[in-house]
C-alpha cells in the first residue's frame, strides 16, 4: 500500500488548515455561499436536503485497518453511526455539521486520508480494480499508476475549474471490474514487447447522455503519461462547453468533435507539453510500485477449504473469488443485506471489517464500485473464521453479483438533485427476490437504480437498470435492459412506459420470469437478453 512521506503529509496537513480558514471566513460572513460552494465542494462537502454530506476519498478504493477504523470513528462521532460506501469507491457521511468538518479533516489527516477533490469541477478520486494486486488476470498492479495520477491531479493549478467534473479509472486486466470505459478517462495497462503502457479511452460516462469512451491512444508509456494526460485535459479545458452544464462533460466534446479530431488536437498539444519536463522520472513510479509489492504471502498456505458447513459453502461459492497466490482467496463482503440500504455500514460493522482485515487480510481492504467491501488477501484456511465473524456482524449475505446486490444512489431520501427515491425501491426488489435459492438460480444479474438522470446509481450499465423520474409530481420508474459496465460494455435501453414504485417490482419479476423461461444452458440474463432482443422482453413486460 502507498504510504505518505513528509511531502504528502505536509500537503494534506496544509489542506486542513486551508479549509479551517475557509470555513471560518464563511461562518463570519466574509465570503458568500456562492463563493464558498466551489471551495467546500473541492473538499467533498455538499449541502443536501437535510444536512451537509461529506465525501471522504479512498484513493483507488484501497485502505488499511487503521484507516477503516478511522472511518468508523467518524461515523460514530460526527454522523449518526453510519457511513455510506459509494460507486466511486469513496465513503460519504450524510449528517455532517459544517463547523465540525475541519476537525473531521484533521482526524483523517492523522491516518493519511482526506476529502480532496471528491467533488467539484476538478479531477476526482482515481478509481481502480478492487482486486488489484490479488487478481490472477492482471498484467501489473494498476494502483501505482493510479497513485501517480492522483499526485499529478491533486491541486492541479490549471485544471481545478474545469467545465465539469472529471473521473479517471485505471485497470490492468481484460476483465473490467471498474466500468473503465464509462469514465471521462479510462486507462487499461497493457504489456507491449515487455514494456508496460497505458491504453487510453476518453469521453465515456453515464449521466443524462451516456457514452462509451472511444480509444484515443493505443499505448503511452509511463515516461509520457503525465504530458499526455495534461494535453487531454488542456484540450477539454479549452473547448469543453460552459454554456450548458448538462453538455459540459468531455464526452459531449468528443461526440461533437469526433474522436479523430480530438485525438489530433491532443497530439498537437502533447508535442508542446512534452517539452516542459512535467513527467516524473522513472524512479518515482518505481518508488510507488515498491510500496505495492506483494504483501508477505505464506508460500506454505494450504489450498484446502473445509466445506462441511453448507451455509458457509454457499457463501464461498458466491462471494469468494480466486487469488493469484496459492492458498489465498479474495473475500467479497456484501453490503446488500435484504431490506438494507445498499452500501451502508454501521460504525460497528466498519470496525469488524477493520479487525478482520488486520487479522486475516494482510491489513488491507478495498471498496468496490458496486458498493461492497473486499478483503483481498485471505488465507483459505481462515475463510471459515472470517465468515463466522461476518455472520455475527450481519455482513455475510451470499449475494455478490446476484439480483439483490443492487447499486443504488442515495436518491430523494438524501439528495437534493433526485427526482425519486432509490433506496425503498432497492429494498422492495431485494425483498421480493429474498429467497437465496431463487437468486442463485437467476445467476449473475446486475441491477442498478438511479433516482434521477444524473445516473449516480449507474442505471445505464445495469443488466437491469431503473431510472426514477418525476412525472407530474409523482415518482415514476423507467426500466432499462441490457446495460453492462464490464469488458462487454453496453448501454441499457428503455423498455417503454414507466411504472409506479410497486409496479416496477412487478415488471422486474416479469423480466426475470421471461429469462427463466427462455434461457439456454449456462446463459446469464444479459446473454439471453442479447440473444432474444428487447421485443421479446417488452411483450413479457407490457403484455
Amino acid at each position, binding site marked *: 500500500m502507498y504510504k505518505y*512521506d513528509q*511531502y*504528502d503529509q*505536509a*500537503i494534506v496537513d*496544509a489542506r486542513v*488548515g*486551508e479549509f479551517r*480558514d*475557509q470555513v471560518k*471566513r464563511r461562518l463570519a460572513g*466574509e*465570503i458568500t455561499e456562492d*463563493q464558498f460552494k*466551489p*471551495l467546500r465542494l473541492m473538499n467533498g462537502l455538499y449541502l443536501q436536503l437535510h444536512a451537509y454530506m461529506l465525501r471522504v476519498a479512498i484513493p483507488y478504493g484501497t485502505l488499511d485497518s487503521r484507516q477503516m477504523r478511522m472511518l468508523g470513528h467518524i461515523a460514530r462521532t460526527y454522523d449518526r453511526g453510519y457511513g455510506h460506501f459509494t460507486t466511486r469507491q469513496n465513503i460519504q457521511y450524510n449528517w455532517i455539521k459544517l463547523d465540525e468538518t475541519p476537525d473531521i479533516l484533521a482526524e483523517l489527516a492523522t491516518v493519511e486520508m482526506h476529502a480532496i477533490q471528491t467533488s467539484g*469541477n476538478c479531477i476526482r478520486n482515481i478509481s481502480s480494480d478492487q482486486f488489484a494486486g490479488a487478481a490472477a488476470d492482471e498484467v501489473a498492479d494498476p494502483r501505482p499508476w493510479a497513485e501517480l495520477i492522483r*499526485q*499529478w491531479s*491533486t*491541486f*492541479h*493549478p*490549471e*485544471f*481545478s*475549474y*474545469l*467545465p465539469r467534473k472529471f473521473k479517471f479509472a485505471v485497470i490492468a486486466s481484460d476483465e473490467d471490474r471498474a466500468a473503465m470505459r464509462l469514465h471521462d478517462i479510462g486507462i487499461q495497462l497493457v504489456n507491449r514487447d515487455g514494456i508496460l503502457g497505458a491504453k487510453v479511452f476518453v469521453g465515456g460516462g453515464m449521466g443524462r447522455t451516456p457514452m462509451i469512451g472511444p480509444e484515443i491512444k493505443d499505448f503511452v508509456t509511463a515516461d509520457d503519461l*503525465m504530458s499526455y494526460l495534461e494535453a487531454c485535459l*488542456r484540450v477539454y*479545458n*479549452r473547448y469543453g462547453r*460552459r454554456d450548458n452544464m448538462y453538455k459540459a462533460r468531455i464526452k459531449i466534446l468528443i461526440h461533437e468533435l469526433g474522436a479523430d479530431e480530438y485525438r489530433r488536437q491532443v497530439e498537437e498539444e502533447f508535442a*508542446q507539453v512534452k517539452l*516542459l*519536463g*512535467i513527467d*516524473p*522520472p522513472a*524512479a*518515482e513510479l518505481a*518508488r510507488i510500485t515498491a510500496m505495492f509489492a506483494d504483501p508477505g504471502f505464506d508460500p506454505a498456505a494450504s489450498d484446502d477449504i473445509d466445506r462441511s458447513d453448507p451455509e458457509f459453502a454457499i457463501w464461498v461459492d458466491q462471494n469468494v473469488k480466486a487469488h493469484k497466490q496459492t492458498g489465498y482467496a479474495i473475500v467479497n463482503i456484501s453490503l446488500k443485506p435484504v431490506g438494507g440500504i445498499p452500501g451502508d455500514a454501521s460504525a460497528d460493522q466498519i470496525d469488524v471489517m477493520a479487525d478482520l482485515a488486520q487479522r486475516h487480510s494482510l491489513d488491507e481492504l478495498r471498496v468496490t464500485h458496486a458498493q461492497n467491501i473486499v478483503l483481498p488477501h485471505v488465507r483459505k484456511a481462515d475463510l471459515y473464521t472470517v465468515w463466522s465473524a461476518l455472520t455475527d456482524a450481519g455482513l455475510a449475505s451470499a449475494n455478490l453479483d446476484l439480483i439483490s446486490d443492487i447499486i443504488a444512489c442515495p436518491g430523494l431520501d438524501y439528495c437534493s438533485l433526485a427526482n425519486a427515491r432509490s433506496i425503498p425501491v432497492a429494498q422492495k426488489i431485494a425483498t421480493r427476490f429474498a429467497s437465496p435459492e431463487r437468486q442463485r438460480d437467476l445467476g449473475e444479474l446486475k441491477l442498478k437504480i438511479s433516482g434521477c438522470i444524473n445516473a449516480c446509481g449507474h442505471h445505464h450499465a445495469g443488466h437491469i437498470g431503473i431510472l426514477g423520474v418525476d412525472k407530474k409530481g409523482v415518482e415514476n420508474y423507467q426500466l432499462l435492459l441490457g446495460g453492462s459496465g464490464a469488458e462487454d460494455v453496453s448501454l441499457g435501453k428503455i423498455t417503454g412506459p414507466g411504472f409506479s414504485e410497486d409496479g416496477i417490482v412487478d415488471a422486474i419479476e416479469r423480466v426475470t420470469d421471461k429469462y427463466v423461461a427462455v434461457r439456454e444452458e449456462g446463459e446469464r440474463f444479459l446473454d439471453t437478453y442479447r440473444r432474444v432482443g428487447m421485443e421479446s422482453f417488452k411483450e413479457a413486460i407490457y403484455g
Partner: protein
Amino acid sequence: MDNLLRFRDDAAHEEPAVTLDAFVDGQSNATAVRIEPGDDARALIPMLDRLALVEVGFPSFRDGRGYSSARILREAGYTGELRAAGDVLVDQMPFMRRCGFDAFAPDAPIDADVLARSLDRYDHVYQRAADDAVPVWKLRHG
C-alpha cells in the same frame, strides 16, 4: 484598477488593452491586449515580444479557461505582465500564481492578510506548472 495587486517589480502598464482580434490583425501598435475566455491564447505566440501586458478576463470565477491561457503564454516564453481581471477570488490566486499570473485586477477588494496566508499555505506541490515551485517528485529524486 483600484484593486490592482502586482507581484512584479516594474511599474504597472498604463496603456489600455485592445481585444485579441484588434491586436492580431496587424493594424494595432498596442502593447497591451485583453483576452476573453473563448479566445485562443495561442494566436498571440508569434507576437509576444510586442507585448508588455496581457490581461486575461474572468467574467465568472467558475470559468477556468484563463488558467490554460496563462500557462500557454508562459510556456511560449512570455515574460511581460500577465493579469487576471474580473471575478477573481482570493482562494483562486495561489493556482493563478502557479499558472503564471503575476498581477490581479479583481472586481472586489482582496483582504491582504487572507491573501498572504493563502499564498504561504503550501510548502510543496505535486506537479510542475508555470511558476518555479519544485514538484515533490523532484525533491524525492533530485
